[in-house]
């Protein structure tokens, strides 16, 4: 699964540690999601979507699919 977490984090001037703190996970988890080595749970994906105030499908997309039309 592809994601735009790194881009969104940069847009909001957040470090991996900052984002990890806000989501209640470890910095390692954020790094693993950004490098697409780990796919987050639905709960965590919704938390990310809520934090960045974007629909979940505009942040996380299955491999091969493009993000939603409002990107």
């Amino acid at each position, binding site marked *: 699964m592809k994601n735009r977490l790194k881009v969104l984090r940069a847009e909001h001037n957040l470090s991996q540690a900052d984002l990890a703190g806000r989501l*209640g*996970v*470890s910095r*390692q*988890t954020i*790094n*693993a999601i950004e490098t697409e*080595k*780990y796919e*987050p*749970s639905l709960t*965590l994906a919704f938390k990310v979507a809520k934090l960045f105030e974007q629909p979940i499908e505009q942040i996380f997309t299955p491999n091969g699919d493009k993000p939603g039309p409002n990107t």
Partner: protein
Amino acid sequence: MRTVAGQNRGGKSLVLAAILFVLTVFVSMAVGEMPQLPATVRVPIALIPALIFAYFIYQRRRLLHTEDELEQRIQLEALSIAYPLTFLLLVILGQLERVITLKPEDWDYGHIWPFVFIFYIVGLMIARKRYQ
């Protein structure tokens, strides 16, 4: 939700339990080599490490609930490596025992459980590397 304070407390308890376990294993090994002591003394001392290890397992389980989802996955993957390896070791020893006599001084229970711990550490290293 994971809490750093909770994780730190749990982590310290785990380290303390691990240190106590190692110390008591050495004490029980030393006492085990004193045949002049009665069994009523040697048996309880031999079981003290098991009690401490039970506490270690309890603390590890508690800590697991404070860890985030990636760490829980890493722990699960570590066990998914360690468990089959343990099974494989037991199958090998069991099969060998059918055809040859394994020396108890080389392959008793006391020699097998350290392998289980080593397999867990190996599993943990493999799982952590995967998500780095």
